[in-house]
């Protein structure tokens, strides 16, 4: 019996067809997987909106920031959470002023939680970025920009609301993340 196989043009076509069929068959699960895996790309963060944070009277008018929790309803994939703390802001106001300044507690460098160091300054525990009480940068600093201020509204009845949003970290420009 002749057991030899001639290597020919037919062989090349067979190889091509085998690779094509196998590739096509494997493509389906890979494509479906990648398609689903990239689902987060089409998801947008919640639109920035004003969230009530506290009462004006709760912010002492001594120019020293105080930490407040931002409370909101939140959707996390399939779960809808009722109102719960979703982040923190620092609020401060000067003597006798109704004007409240709001700073997000997220460090503009790498997103850690910036802490208030006594009544002197802000310091980020991760890389020691230091900021003045009004959020200004203290050089030298790993942070490329001052702390991110948030729009703040004080209503007639004293309710303080903050426009809650996240910003991209690590860049010099203050850019809202989407």
């Amino acid at each position, binding site marked *: *019996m*002749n*057991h*030899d*196989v001639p290597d020919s043009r037919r*062989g090349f076509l*067979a*190889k091509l*067809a*085998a*690779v*094509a*069929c*196998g590739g*096509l*068959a*494997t493509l*389906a*699960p*890979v494509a*479906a*997987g*990648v*398609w*689903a*895996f*990239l*689902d987060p790309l*089409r998801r947008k963060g919640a639109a920035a909106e004003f969230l009530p944070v506290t009462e004006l009277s709760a912010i002492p008018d001594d120019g020293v920031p105080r930490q407040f929790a931002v409370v909101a309803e939140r*959707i996390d*994939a*399939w*779960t*809808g*959470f*009722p109102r719960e703390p979703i982040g923190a802001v620092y609020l401060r106001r000067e003597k006798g002023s109704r004007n409240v300044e709001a700073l997000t507690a997220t460090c503009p460098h790498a997103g850690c939680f910036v802490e208030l160091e006594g009544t002197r300054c802000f310091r980020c525990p991760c890389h020691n970025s230091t900021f003045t009480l009004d959020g200004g940068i203290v050089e030298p600093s790993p942070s490329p920009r001052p702390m991110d201020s948030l729009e703040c509204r004080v209503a007639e009845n004293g309710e303080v609301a903050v426009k809650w949003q996240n910003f991209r970290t690590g860049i010099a420009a203050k850019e809202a993340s989407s």
Partner: protein
Amino acid sequence: MTPPREGRGGPLRRLADFLDDRTGWRGLMHEALYERVPGGARWRYVWGSTLVFAFMTQVITGLFLWASYSASGQTAWESVWYIQHEMTGGWLLRGIHHFMAQAMVVLLALHLLQVVIDGAYKAPREVNFWLGLVLMMLVLGMALTGYLLPWDQKGYWATRVATNLAGIVPVIGPAIQKVVVGGPDYGHHTLTRFFALHAGFLPATLVAFLVVHLALFRKHGLHAKQPITKPDGMFWPDQLLKDAVAMLAVMAVVLGVILVPAVRTMLAGGHVDWGHVGAELGAPADPSQPYAAARPEWYFLFLFQFLKVFEGWGATGEFLGAILVPGLIMGVMFLMPILGNWKLGHRFNVAFTLGLLAGVAVLTGLALDEDYYALWADKQQVAEAAKLFDETGGDEEKLLAAVGGDKAKAAAIAGQFQTVEKIRRSEAFLAAVKTARADAERAAELAGRPERIPPGGALELVRRDPLSQGPRLFAQHCSSCHAHVDPETPEAATILARSSAANLHGFGTAAWMKGLLDPDQVAGPAYFGNTAHKDGDMVNFVREDLQDAETWKPADIEAVIAALAAESGLGDAKTPAATILRGRELVASDERCGSCHRFGDNGTDLGTACDLTGWGGREWLVGIITDPTHERFYGDTNDRMPSFGKAAEGAMPLLTDEQIGLLADWLRGEW
């Protein structure tokens, strides 16, 4: 060693050479691909490769599913729902994983069949055959553990059965069960453990066995089907081309199963909801709800049916059917390579395998026949028997009396009772499947609302849903007296005849009130006909006073109906305000309804008749369900209705406030 060849040929060639010098990949590829196939490539050899391909598909899709799955009692169903309904392509990913798992079971059977028929298990390949059997059990184990992970009713109940069966293994059974389930009860750790088994332990073990299986396969070479008539071929590309075509065909079948229903809908011009394409997702697992549609996945149906053979044997039967007999069968299969050495051994092995598959097919067929019998049974033929069965409850003496003492006829009818019962069981199963589908759809719909699923999980959502809970609560607590049936439907008459209290379908609407004020209906089965109020004041009023057209002009009656429907909040929004106002005056008037009924501040004493203030509204319904003996409702003329929300001190009421609210909302059609 060959000297470095860098510097020759194009850049690609040079890179390949570079790598080959350092890894020897060409040799490895050559080793892997250039295997001689005695007698040439054949289609019958493709099954092993398709199984490897199916497993790879499961690994790929499984890893991507893993990236979005969350194994816990409050997140498993929810995350699978999210994959299926919210993530782009999630339905396709899950569909491929789900149906490829089923394809794998079929491919396993084909591979086993080919190996046994070709005698490929014989020396020197015995060990590889045993490895194959271990691989088969691992695949079945992955199928079993994967079924639970969505934590839906189907998977939950199937797993309860499977783990309870494991619990009847003598001595160590209860311990095995507890370890697998993760405790004395089903919950978080059942899921984490099954997930670890499904995505970790079992596939890792499978890979280890597969590597040895393939290595031994290469060592022994392909077992060629005798006699060899054609020249030898090469694994690459001859056999691999056939393998690849078979893989593509398997994938095409899987995609077909997923996509054909959707394509059909599209061709018919319908809208395709992709969340409902591919693998099903049942309602969230609920240990407090019966699930009569519980069945194992189709490839385990034969075992389910086999267990029925031992019905009535108790735990012994289950031990025999679920453990001993399957164990013996596996034992025989493990012995096949040794049996094969005997003169008739191979024939026995082939006959045994074919017999086994035939047995599986027959049992599967029987199981399907029992479940779906009502779909193809000739119900006309047993119509009389069915009727007599309902009347006599299958009692022989009653049957004899029913057919007027005709013994031959009674015997003939009794002979058909079995068929009738089979139809009834099948109908009950089909109804359960329908309910399960509706529940599943409703749960998905609730989860898809903008407020999403509460942190407590989807079951909370379902339990707070009037549409899901209303019919169940009604069936449990109300339907032994009350009907809830649209009077326009053909089955209404039968259902109403069986009821002994008012039909609550559409309670609170103008149509319902219109029927109550109809002299032909008020004492009928849909209203007071089957109650103690049959000859009561209201019936007399409707039949006599209301017929006095001098006092009660048709427009007045219309106005009263409109006013009461408005009171419940279920009235027609287009009813003129003047009509309602006129109706309210009549209802309140102490010369009309108000002579007995309190309405607003008309001053009529409570206790003579129901308070019509807010009649049929949520608060009113909650009130009457809570305590119909309250003076606002029937007081001491209450006929049999329990006070569902009231209990003696220290006792539990029949229904919680929440349940009563759900009933009221469902009766009012608010969900």
